[in-house]
């Protein structure tokens, strides 16, 4: 095997091997160092011999022995390390563990990285580093911070796991639902970070959208029949399927109504739609991700903007407003209503919501109003609203879009 092949195997197996190692050696840093040692051995051995039948088990085994060596080498032997050493040597002789145990290891790692005792950006960084196996440099690029700063952040997080006693476990059933919501929020953050920033000039920036989809697929396999997981996976697949159509080569935003639908990834849209159907069949209360994915599926499968099933989309947004209200949902609901009952009705809805204070400080409010006013032919008010929208955003492509709208209205 070439070093590149070996690197690929390692990248595929590293996350799960690490998850098991952390449980076996009881320490993040020791597990990471030992796995790095095992990788060095693999590079040497696999380039001359064949790949072992189960590379992950091989890596875990070699790394475990490396961990034993590392603990032994430490000059000052203390009671605790003696006990650890004893335990490690004992379980090194134990027969191979059942696959279910190894699946649980991966879940343990995911839930630990997404523990609510960490700030959400720390949860994302830890997950990308340990679960996805990105390098510290790659995670740093994803956050647009220096490698040193990211290294520090990760060291502090791993220290907190050890010193504050964050357990390496899957939450008990009664605590599972809120903790799973937290994990899904992290995955969605990874995705939106990648989705928004793909236009960035940094080609070395990792493909975060793809990482998020990979994570959600993994979670769906480890915890089957959970509507929220299927819904999130579907939502991301459906958004990502439209990636090629939503931006010009020059980095300008192409609005949904103007996108070339032949650029959309049909296979991915089909997969996303099937997942929405699966998620809707799981009994229980409607899950926000599933409803959002159902809306995305209606958009993705519509032959054109005009032939989109707007009444059903408006109905689904009504469900979302009820189960998961937020300014962005309210505005999207109004936008859908504008396609069913016309822009005048939608403008009433937006202004009524704004009057209740439901949209305070929400930067897309003037943009949505501007669009509705433009469609109503109220040019002067529309111009004022576009000016307000331009002042409210930092994003250059959005500013260019608003300027274009004002030009198109003429005098």
């Amino acid at each position, binding site marked *: 095997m070439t070093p590149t092949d070996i690197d690929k195997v390692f990248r595929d197996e590293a996350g799960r091997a690490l998850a098991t190692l952390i449980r076996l050696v009881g320490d993040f840093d020791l597990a990471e160092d030992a796995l790095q040692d095992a990788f060095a051995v693999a590079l040497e051995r696999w380039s001359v011999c064949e790949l072992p039948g189960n590379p992950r088990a091989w890596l875990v085994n070699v790394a475990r022995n490396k961990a034993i060596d590392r603990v032994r080498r430490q000059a000052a032997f203390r009671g*605790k390390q003696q006990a650890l050493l004893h335990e490690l040597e004992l379980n090194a002789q134990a027969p191979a563990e059942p696959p279910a145990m190894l699946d649980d290891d991966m879940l343990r790692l995911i839930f630990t990285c997404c523990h609510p005792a960490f700030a959400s950006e720390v949860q994302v960084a830890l997950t990308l580093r340990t679960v996805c196996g990105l390098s510290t440099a790659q995670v740093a690029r994803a956050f647009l911070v220096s490698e040193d700063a990211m290294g520090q952040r990760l060291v502090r997080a791993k220290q907190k796991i050890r010193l504050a006693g*964050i*357990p390496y476990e899957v939450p008990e059933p009664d605590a599972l639902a809120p903790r799973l919501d937290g994990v899904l929020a992290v995955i969605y953050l990874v995705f939106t970070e990648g989705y928004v920033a793909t236009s960035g000039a940094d080609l070395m920036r990792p493909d975060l959208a793809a990482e998020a989809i990979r994570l959600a697929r993994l979670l769906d396999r480890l915890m089957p029949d959970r509507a929220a997981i299927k819904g999130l996976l579907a939502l991301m697949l459906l958004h990502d399927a439209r990636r090629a159509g939503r931006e010009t080569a020059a980095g300008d935003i192409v609005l949904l109504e103007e996108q070339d639908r032949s650029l959309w990834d049909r296979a991915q849209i089909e997969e996303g739609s099937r997942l929405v159907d699966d998620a809707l069949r799981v009994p229980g209360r409607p899950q926000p991700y599933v409803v959002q994915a159902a809306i995305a599926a209606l958009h993705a499968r519509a032959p054109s903007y005009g032939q989109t099933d707007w009444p059903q989309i408006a109905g689904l947004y009504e469900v979302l407003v009820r189960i998961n209200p937020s300014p962005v949902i309210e505005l999207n609901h109004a936008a859908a209503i504008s396609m069913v009952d016309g822009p005048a009705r939608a403008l009433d809805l937006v202004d009524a919501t704004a009057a209740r204070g439901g949209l305070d400080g929400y930067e897309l409010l003037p943009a949505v109003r501007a669009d509705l006013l433009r469609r109503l032919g109220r040019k002067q008010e529309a111009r004022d609203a576009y000016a307000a929208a331009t002042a409210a955003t930092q994003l250059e492509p959005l500013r260019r879009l608003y300027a274009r709208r004002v030009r198109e209205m003429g005098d």
Partner: protein
Amino acid sequence: MQYLLMIYQNEAEYAKIDTGTSQKMSAEYEAFTQSIVRNGNFKAGDRLRPTTTATTVRVRDGKTLTTDGPFAETREQLGGYYLIEAKDLNAAIEIAARIPSARIGSIEVRPIWVYDK
């Protein structure tokens, strides 16, 4: 592991609550304390007098300097603490969330630094 649960709340507002609410709060604290004593989590715990009674001490160049009041002026003040024994951070958070003041103030959970012998 051992954790210190530090109870922060706005003293000025807490001083304004009526007798009935205050008695109810005391009863809730009593019940909470009893429950963690029964479960073996309780190591120590006390309520503190308000920060108006605080004195802050520093030694600089061998000289003891004292100032009237707490170390830092903040919106919420340290009003009491529990020292507990808990299996892990999840268990400590679960106990912290049952402290009656968690509903009006904040509980800071800090692991105790244990020195290797």
